[in-house]
């Protein structure tokens, strides 16, 4: 199963996949579609990606986590397509023997995705849609 999904994200399955009897800590980050941005109301977001490159960048991030926190088990998925307010756009689950490593790995994955993973969003409000550029 790839990192990108065109279907709703299976949060419970991802959590169960990361469970280990020797992992006492399990951290979950969910990025969901918010109803506002930059002072405007948001009703939906279209996510699109350069899919093969996004998969490749995600694998690089997985490798970074394996190198920095070898004890961490990681399961993550990002959704592509038309999402409405409240829908989950990204789910990251990390488990480890103790909590510092899983929290750190979870944070690392979302920050690195936001830097380098070729995924874009077009936000819809009542009046229409616009592409979002976080670093204008």
């Amino acid at each position, binding site marked *: 199963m790839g990192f990108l999904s065109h279907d709703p994200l299976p949060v419970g399955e991802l959590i169960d996949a990361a469970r280990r009897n020797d992992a006492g800590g399990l951290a979950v980050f969910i*990025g969901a579609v918010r109803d506002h941005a930059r002072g405007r109301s948001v009703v939906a977001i279209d*996510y*699109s*990606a*350069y899919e*093969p*490159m*996004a998969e*490749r960048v995600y694998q690089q991030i997985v490798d970074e986590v394996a190198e920095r926190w070898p004890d961490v088990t990681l399961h993550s998925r*990002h959704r592509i397509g038309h999402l409405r307010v409240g829908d989950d*756009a*990204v789910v990251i689950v990390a488990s480890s023997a103790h909590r510092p490593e899983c929290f750190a790995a979870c944070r690392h994955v*979302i920050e690195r*995705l*936001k*830097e*380098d*993973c*070729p*995924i*874009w*969003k*077009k936000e819809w409000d009542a009046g229409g849609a616009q*592409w*979002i*550029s*976080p*670093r*204008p």
Partner: protein
Amino acid sequence: MKVRLLLFAAVAEAAGETELTLELPDASTVSTLRQALIDAQPAVAGHLDGARFAINETFAAEDAALADGDTAAVIPPVAGG
């Protein structure tokens, strides 16, 4: 040399297409490609601020060399998560 260039998000929308094939001189780099894109599709010029380029699915610097048959891509500022 011939290079396939993929366009995404606001850049694709401005161009009205998601890919084009560009004929470039030998020893072309990402900078050459950027200019060739603007020449072929002037409408994208205003959408390249902050955009990076990739060659064969890997980010490439402005002076990175292109080869015949490469697939390049314009990567506007990403916004996942």
